[in-house]
């Protein structure tokens, strides 16, 4: 009998990972001081030379900080010098990648908040021209139109999306791969093509532009998002739950409908919300299906209907000062709606995952 080394309890405990390569506190404070000095220097450059504006400042900051980094890295070996150099490049790329989006957020809030008065949310544009003062007229008709179309779209898409999620995770039939692939590539169908499709079918057959047509176009765009999110959510259901249900004698349909789906109820809500957030700002398909309208329309089959995106788009075309201000306010409302939907989805979605 050979002797064996029996692994002891202690040997199984992995040591806490340490990260000796991370910069020390001293390194960090030196870096931030260098960065601050670069900021001051580049501000001076912008004030004293021809370089101007926020883009000029960014360029100066990049150049100065890069120079400082290269000078500082002279004491290092080549490998670390390269690392420092690339580090600055990557950080600058990140700043540039996030900058437009921060700028959009700031300008939408700053320019839109002026027109965000009570009348904007309760009045319509029936008796107001876009050029009137901002305390007249509003976008209530557009908000109602958007809500109407998006709700219809959600009501159509949610069941279909859930069904395809269930197919992909529970049934796993022969077409699983194909369905997943089609859903993936359908999410890239340009929004204007969806609009064109509904135009050639629904609008042509009913012979009228309507909110219903707009809703159908939005549904085409919404379906992939809902289906994909539903699949992701259903994947999180532990298999033990299904096994337990089978072990208790439940059939597949009971397992799916009464065990699996209820478990992810809030996740499916997330899917619906993300779908809504995806389409609420879509302009192009609505230009071909629901057109726009300046007064309240509550009937989805009652002809052209207003919506937030087409409202903003129309105002931008007019291009006078007040109309552009209105457009900013419309964008602000749109952005707030998207933010609210998104945070709600995060909040609800976080509940399932433990």
């Amino acid at each position, binding site marked *: *009998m050979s002797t064996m080394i029996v692994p002891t309890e202690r040997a199984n405990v992995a040591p806490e990972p340490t990260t000796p*390569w991370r910069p020390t506190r001293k390194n960090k404070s030196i870096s931030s001081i260098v960065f601050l000095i670069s900021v001051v220097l580049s501000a001076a450059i912008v004030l004293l030379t021809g370089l101007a*504006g926020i883009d000029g400042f960014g360029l100066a900051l990049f150049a100065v900080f890069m120079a400082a980094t290269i000078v500082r890295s002279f004491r290092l070996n080549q490998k670390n010098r*390269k*690392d420092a150099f*690339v*580090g600055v*490049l990557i*950080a600058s*790329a*990140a700043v*540039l*990648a996030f900058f*437009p*989006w921060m*700028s*959009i957020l700031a300008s939408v809030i700053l320019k839109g908040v002026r027109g965000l008065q009570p009348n904007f949310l309760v009045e319509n544009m029936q008796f107001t021209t876009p050029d009137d003062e901002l305390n007249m007229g509003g976008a209530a008709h557009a908000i109602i139109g958007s809500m109407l179309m998006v709700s219809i779209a959600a009501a159509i898409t949610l*069941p*279909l999306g*859930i*069904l395809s999620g*269930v197919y992909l995770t529970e*049934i796993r*039939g022969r*077409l699983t791969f194909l*369905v997943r692939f*089609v*859903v*993936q*590539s359908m*999410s*890239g*169908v*340009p*929004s*204007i*093509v*969806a609009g*064109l*499709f509904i135009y*050639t*079918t629904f609008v042509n057959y009913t012979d009228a532009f309507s909110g219903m047509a707009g809703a159908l176009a939005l549904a*085409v765009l919404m379906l*992939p998002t809902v289906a994909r999110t539903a699949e992701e959510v259903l994947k999180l259901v532990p298999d033990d739950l299904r096994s337990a249900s*089978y072990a208790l004698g439940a*059939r*597949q*349909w009971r397992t799916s409908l009464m065990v699996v789906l209820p478990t992810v109820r809030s996740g499916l809500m997330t899917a619906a919300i993300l779908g809504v*957030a995806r389409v609420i*700002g879509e*302009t192009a398909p609505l230009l*071909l299906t629901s057109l726009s309208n300046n007064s309240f329309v509550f009937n989805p089959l009652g002809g052209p209907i207003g919506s937030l*995106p087409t409202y903003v*788009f129309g105002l*931008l075309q007019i291009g006078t000062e007040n109309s552009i201000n209105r457009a*900013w306010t419309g*964008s602000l409302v749109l*952005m707030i709606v*998207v933010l609210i939907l*998104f945070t709600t989805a995060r909040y609800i979605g976080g509940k399932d995952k433990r």
Partner: protein
Amino acid sequence: MSISPSVQATPEARELSVIFNRADRIFRRIVTAGALTSLILLGLIGTFLFVRSAQIFNDRGLKFITGSNWTAGSGDGIIPDDFSIGPMLTGTILVSVIALVISMPLAIGGALFVEFYATPKVRKVLTTLLDLAAAIPSLIFGIWGVVFFSSYGERWSDLLNSRFGWLPFIKVQNEVFGRSPFVAGCVLASLITPIITSVSREVFSRTPRDLVDTCYALGGTRWGAIKTVVLPFGKSGVIGGAMLGLGRALGETVAVYLLLNIVFRYNFRILESEGGNIASLIALKFGEATEYELKALVAAGFVLFLLTLVVNMVAASIVERSTRRR
């Protein structure tokens, strides 16, 4: 031989054999039917667009793709209808390529920064911001582009023209720099950067942690680890993300419509204020189109549909493959 207790093997899970009864079969059929709607829908989109525009393809053949005019006839036959999408097709590709070229380095840098340079707290915030940015409607990018960005775009164009004017695709004929493919491409770039960054970050985050740590343990720098482990590992995912972004850029309507002078002439000079893409052509001409012109617009939409479908299918298969394995 003794088997130490710590290597006791857990028994393999037994294969479940399920017998479906009638209720099950009905359930499965309903679900399958529901799942097939997306398949059918995609087929219907293609079919209907093609059927409605078949007359155009029949009448004009390949000239629809290559010709460079979009003239509505006078109706009495004196000026014949002449519809083709050549400049718009090249314009679509030009603007999207500009957007992709600008956004790729930013997206890769951004993703690397979020995943490997930011502290965990910052990473969480940035990831949320990224997801949010990808959800902001393109209309808002459009209005931002028109009101805020275009003055910067013009200044940069002016600068580019005076420094690099000797390059054939940068040279301009008249020095009006607004509403050019370059400006539209910049705004499209800011639109697709969050998408590409998001996908790339996701792929980078799947790099096996041990490999990266091994790199550090061998004395490698952060850039060394990124170059030797992270980038090779995430390459296909990044390409897939780029294709997704490209698909989005190819089909973008509103932002291009607002930021580009739509002119029917082949133009490859990126600073010249003329260009266009198929989607914005449809939005522009739809309102006052004649019946025959509408068919031509549907035909243009069909071409766009095929173009984006191919790009997206390639993207979907790449992303699927590179995020599946763990």
